[in-house]
């Protein structure tokens, strides 16, 4: 496999509120291959959004290295650094908050175009803006360009923010929950448009979501990374991961999700957690942070040290998992609900 377009290596990130330090990300290692579909999945507070922002260079990691096209981002200076920043774009979750209400659509698309001298003059900017809007299926273009965000629907806004992200010809787009605030009926259209961008523009897309089903749909040919409380607990090819989840957390998640099929969802077996309370990030348990809730908790092992991602010895798949019992090849029995 060729050099990954981006690589996260030992990323830690913590935030300070008042006098307490909150470790939001711990030891994240992740390769993003060119043109692959990668999904980061996890519940709120698991650090997936922070990961996205670190990828997009919007947040510096507390420690660890980010490589973009093989070069450590920390060593990038001046133009190179700007180039990197422009090449990795983030699309936010909230289409209402991510567009400046005081600017027209043309304003917000033309600013980066003109600022980086990607086009010349207002006319050029207008032409390019129209192209971009067409690319994201926003027509009629001329109607849209001079509108303000509040005059657009949620789906249209999200398309605008994608078009804006494309102004700088990025090679990586990080889509952070980008369809979760859009109506169900048009989500798929938006997602498909994003998927098409890979074909049309050669953009690598990292999709961040809390919805495993959506992740599965999006990254069917790619990979999914499951995060829990700031750590990556399982990474692997989507099809393998969905079929045969390894990490207890992934398994619990998959068993807990209701499905849009009455019979299936009512007969599904739910794995009972040992505890329903999610630990606070400020009071993380020692060892594997899932152990207080984990049905497969092994005393003296899981609560002692933190498991690292690795392919279980017994496994024949490529899924990496951070769980001692799994790595040691124990067969995990599902509990009855």
């Amino acid at each position, binding site marked *: 496999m060729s050099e990954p377009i981006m690589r996260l290596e030992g990323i830690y990130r913590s935030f300070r509120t008042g006098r307490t330090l909150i470790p939001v990300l711990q030891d994240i290692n992740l390769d993003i291959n060119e043109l692959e579909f990668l999904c980061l999945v996890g519940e709120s507070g698991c650090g997936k959004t922070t990961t996205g922002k670190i990828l997009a260079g919007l947040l510096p990691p507390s420690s660890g290295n980010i490589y973009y096209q093989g070069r450590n981002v920390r060593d990038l200076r001046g133009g190179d650094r700007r180039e990197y920043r422009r090449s990795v774009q983030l699309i936010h979750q909230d289409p209402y908050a991510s567009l400046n209400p005081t600017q027209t659509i043309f304003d917000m698309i033309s600013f980066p175009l003109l600022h980086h001298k990607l086009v010349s003059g207002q006319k050029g900017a207008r032409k390019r803006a129209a192209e971009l809007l067409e690319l994201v299926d926003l027509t009629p273009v001329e109607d849209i360009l001079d509108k303000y965000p509040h005059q657009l629907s949620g789906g249209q806004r999200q398309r605008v923010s994608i078009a804006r992200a494309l102004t700088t010809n990025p090679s990586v787009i990080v889509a952070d929950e980008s369809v979760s605030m859009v109506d*169900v009926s*048009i989500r798929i259209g938006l997602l498909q448009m994003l998927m098409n961008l890979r074909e049309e523009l050669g953009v690598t897309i990292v999709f961040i979501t809390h919805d495993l*089903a*959506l992740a599965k749909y999006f990254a069917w040919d790619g990979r999914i990374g499951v995060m829990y409380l700031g750590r990556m607990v399982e990474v692997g090819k989507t099809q393998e991961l969905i079929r045969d989840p390894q990490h207890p957390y992934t398994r619990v*998640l998959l068993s807990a999700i*209701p*499905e*849009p*099929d009455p019979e299936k969802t009512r007969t599904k077996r739910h794995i009972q957690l040992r505890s329903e309370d*999610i630990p606070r990030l400020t009071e993380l348990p020692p060892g594997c942070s899932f152990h207080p809730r984990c049905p497969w908790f092994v005393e003296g092992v899981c609560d002692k040290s933190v498991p690292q991602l690795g392919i279980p010895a017994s496994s024949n798949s490529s899924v990496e998992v951070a769980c001692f019992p799994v790595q040691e090849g124990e067969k995990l029995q599902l509990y009855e609900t």
Partner: protein
Amino acid sequence: MNQKMNDDVVLRVDDLSIVYRTKRGNVQATTDISFDLKRGEAMALIGESGSGKTTVSLSLIRKLPKNALVTKGQVLYQREGNVRDVLKLSKRQLREFRWKDCAMVFQGSQNAFNPVLKIRKQFEDTARAHGWTDKEAVRQRALELLRLVRLDPERVYEAYPHELSGGMKQRTLLALGVLLNPQVVILDEPTTALDILTQRAIIDVLNDMQKKLNFSIIFISHDLSLAAEMADIVATVYAGEIVEIGPVNDIFYDPQHPYTHGLLTSVPKLDHEQDLLTSIKGAPPNLITPPSGCKFHPRCPYVTEKCSVDGPPLAGDKPEHLAACWHKDALLKAREELAQEVAQ
């Protein structure tokens, strides 16, 4: 209009039409909504944001915003043979009716509790407002309910709201909701904004409670999966109208309305296969100037000229499964084609 109500019907909504008066014009929030809710039954209203489902739920306890106007219809509750129209209750009657007959768990229960009062106080307030002043009895009942929703009752009862996590608050609110033994509990997006594992806990708790306390549930959601799991009856709401209503299996396995079908085919499943999904084209209509005829016609793949002229009636072969569409056949055909495609 059938005024006679079967004994097992606890709530009947009859031809309910509600208009919001805004500066830009009147918004036809709901049009001719009718349905029956039976005792112990769970009903789901499914629809996208702005479809009017929340308006329906608010009208059930007459908590509509000031600019809302009920232009037509009634909301009938039956308790022990007495049938009352909520929309005609006096202010005092209404106050007594609320929570005792019909409790509502609002969307985003994060702020459902007064932040400066202990949970205990809020239970006591609710009880006292309905003439139940024995604090010790309230306490016993509350602790029992809190245990039922799988919380540490003593701790939660004496806690302030901010000391509880989101899921705990949601469950506490459920417990508070059934404090007075209501016969109907309305849940507005009960699991939205909660983590999957918390959602699961809520769903389980709700199922438990409903089994034990035998109340009826109306819940409102855009989440088809939730409806699939919890509802007995599912109604699809589009642009202020019920476009399809029926038992949950009928709706999911035999959708008769293109919109219901469209929703089902736009939601990915956790199958071990890749889904064939399609969006519904276009966007939900503006309810100030809604489309003529069938309101879904601008987005419908099976649209004909007739659709834009006449609104189809809510009808069906089976009395319990009704849909409002002129072209059920076309939809059936399309579904068969799709099934074949999937099979391949």
